[in-house]
């Protein structure tokens, strides 16, 4: 419990971190939080005073991909420094304890940090039948409601927790819902992505750790620092889009030359995430750079949004088929309308009463 009362500044100095090392740490943190370099002094000042929060990590209907993403940064790194400084008191994939001991750890953390701990959730919550997903005999809904009650805020990590994700995709057999569908009385930060970029997860934690506040959020509850710009607007292939240079198949000249993938169904224009700058695998590459369009995984209902390989502007229905039916129907109804018109006029012609000079004047 000693670490809980110590500030980060003290902890770092105790670990022999120099002022240059601390400045470097702050620079890296600013970069990670996607904040401008001018924020570094403020970050330094805040971090000096930052206190270690308790974090409880709940996993519901999920594939563990989010945890995998986060733990990709396995080597000792700045992320680790942050995790050294948070108290990850419950995470059933990562923690050593299991069974009743694990649940006891959760309850202890909740009790000790009442009103001050963070809850991280990955996975969606089934409402169709509570039996679809349970932990220690409790339904996900029960666990969530109980854990969130004393939390200061909830971070919904991954698209399943943020928007329902794959479990919620049509026809949504489990009646899956997102965290924010249930938690309405606490701040919920959504960190969507399938999986989310590890740097984004840690960036959000770092923000809370650094400033003790929640980052500015967009309409979907996502931190604006990472989700403020669309993939399209930050894409290095954007100039090709503006110039009208497109790959039409995955093996044509355009694809080889790295032209825009819009026509191959890239969802970049409607997807807000930091992939284009944060990149993946320690900055190695990201989907568009690897030659595949964005599938829009950080957006609600991306599974149902009309196919990964259909251009964004193309309607989801079978237009050509519908159009041909409509043409057939149009010709049919049109023929009837034409018949009515001809009948009307023929009748008028038949009813024509010859105009003679006697009846020019109205009597």
């Amino acid at each position: 419990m000693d670490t809980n009362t110590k500030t980060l500044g003290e902890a770092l100095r105790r670990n022999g971190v120099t002022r240059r090392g601390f400045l470097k740490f702050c620079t890296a943190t600013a970069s990670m939080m996607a904040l401008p370099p001018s924020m570094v002094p403020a970050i330094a000042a805040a971090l000096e005073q930052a206190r270690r929060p308790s974090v409880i990590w709940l996993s519901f209907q999920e594939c563990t991909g989010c945890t995998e993403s986060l733990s990709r940064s396995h080597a000792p790194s700045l992320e680790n420094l942050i995790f050294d400084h948070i108290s990850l008191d419950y995470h059933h994939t990562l923690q050593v304890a299991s069974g009743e001991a694990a649940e006891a750890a959760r309850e202890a953390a909740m009790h000790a940090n009442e009103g001050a701990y963070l809850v991280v959730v990955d996975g969606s919550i089934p409402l169709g039948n509570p039996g679809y997903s349970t932990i220690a005999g409790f339904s996900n809904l029960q666990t969530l409601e109980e854990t969130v009650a004393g939390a200061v805020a909830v971070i919904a990590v991954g698209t399943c927790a943020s928007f329902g994700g794959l479990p919620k995709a049509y026809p949504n057999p489990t009646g899956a819902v997102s965290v924010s569908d249930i938690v309405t009385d606490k701040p919920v930060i959504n960190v969507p992505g399938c999986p989310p970029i590890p740097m984004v997860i840690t960036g959000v934690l770092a923000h809370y750790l650094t400033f003790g506040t929640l980052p500015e959020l967009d309409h979907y509850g996502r931190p604006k620092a990472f989700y403020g710009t669309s993939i399209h607007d930050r894409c290095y292939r954007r100039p090709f889009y503006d110039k009208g240079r497109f790959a039409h198949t995955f093996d044509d000249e355009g694809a080889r030359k790295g032209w825009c993938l819009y026509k191959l169904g890239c969802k970049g224009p409607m997807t807000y995430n930091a992939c284009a700058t944060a990149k993946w695998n320690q900055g190695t590459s990201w989907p568009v750079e690897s030659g595949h369009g964005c599938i829009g995984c950080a957006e609600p209902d991306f599974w149902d949004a009309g196919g990964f390989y259909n251009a964004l502007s193309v309607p989801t229905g079978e237009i050509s088929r519908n159009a041909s039916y409509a043409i057939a129907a149009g010709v049919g109804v049109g023929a009837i309308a034409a018949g009515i018109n001809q009948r009307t006029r023929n009748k008028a012609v038949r009813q024509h009463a010859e105009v003679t000079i006697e009846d020019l004047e109205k009597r």
Partner: protein
Amino acid sequence: MNEATLERGLNAFREQVDAPVAAFFSSCVSCGLCAEACLFYTETGDPKYTPIRKLEPLRRVWEQEYTLIGRVKKVLGLVEPVTDELLQEWQELLYDSCTMCARCSLVCPVGNDIAYMVRKAREGMVASGNSPTDVQAAAERAVRIGSPMGVRYKALAAQIQHIEADTGLVIPVDQVGADYMPLLSSMEVINFPEYIESLARIFQHAGLSWTLCSDAFEATNTGIQIGSSDIARELVQRIVDGAERLQVKYVIAPECGHAYTSIRWDGPDLIGRRFPFKVLHILELLDELRVSGRLKTEKPSAERITFHDPCSIGRKGGVIDSPRRLLGLVSSNFVEMKDHGTWNWCCGGGGGVSANTDAEALRTRVFRRKKDQIEETGASKLITACANCRLVIEEGLEAYNVELPMEGLTELVAHHLVED
């Protein structure tokens, strides 16, 4: 006996809607550009004279009877019906303030032939008893007496006698087997007998066989002006009968705008068959004679002259180049008006307006455009090829106190003939 009623009018409107009318009404986006082509708007600035607006009654019938959505709207009571009051109000717009000059048909960006529709709309106006009484009276005279001005053959015969006595020319009448049968307008018999004299001189000069027809000399057709195909048919039939009786090869339309339209373009459709003779405008005939070298004329005169294109002959009839070639034959100082040929401005008296006393004040007012156009040329003489235009312009110039001699083109050519 029949009676003019709203129902008959509506039925006539219904009869008149064809594919062009439907396409025209479907295409109008109320841009108002047709107003800028209309004398009655440009000279008064009153938007009610916007050409397309004059067709509101016909448009309503089209919408309510010939479109699915219109029929639905009609059932739901969302459209305004065509009523007696509407037609009474629109009489001024369709008769007093429209000469069917078709200038609007030329400017419409979506291609609406508005004059075509005004002609059709007048059928409904006639059938519902909403045509001007003056034009009605003219039609009555045309049908009963044989000429809208009440001119009988007796009067023409007297003119013929005069001319023959004065000039020694021969004017053949009712000669079976002649090649050419010229028609006259009663205005020429009464106001401009020099036209008849010129005809005689030209035919003699060119050595053509021709004849007038004692029971079909009147070319004007009040049926076309008032907008009744039934009356127009009766009047056209007289000419066809006369021409067939005399077995002529050519019927020559006189210097009269709508007469050319009625016999040349509408005639065959009115009587429902092709003519066994050809119809030419007198200017077309003169141009043919010029081409074949049968017109020998003296040196062109240097007097500055200008030419007024009658709408029915030029813009609506396609006789635009012939008069200019003839003018070149007789004048070395011919100046065009700013807007001429297809783009000519109407004299303001066509389409029955000159026969309609209700329209007199308005007609004089809008004549200002023609007056300005003429004055701009600085010409000392105005030539035209329509007796009606000539009368309207003479009256108009008088109203604006402008002194300018006028002459018909046929007379002008006749005066320049030289006999060897």
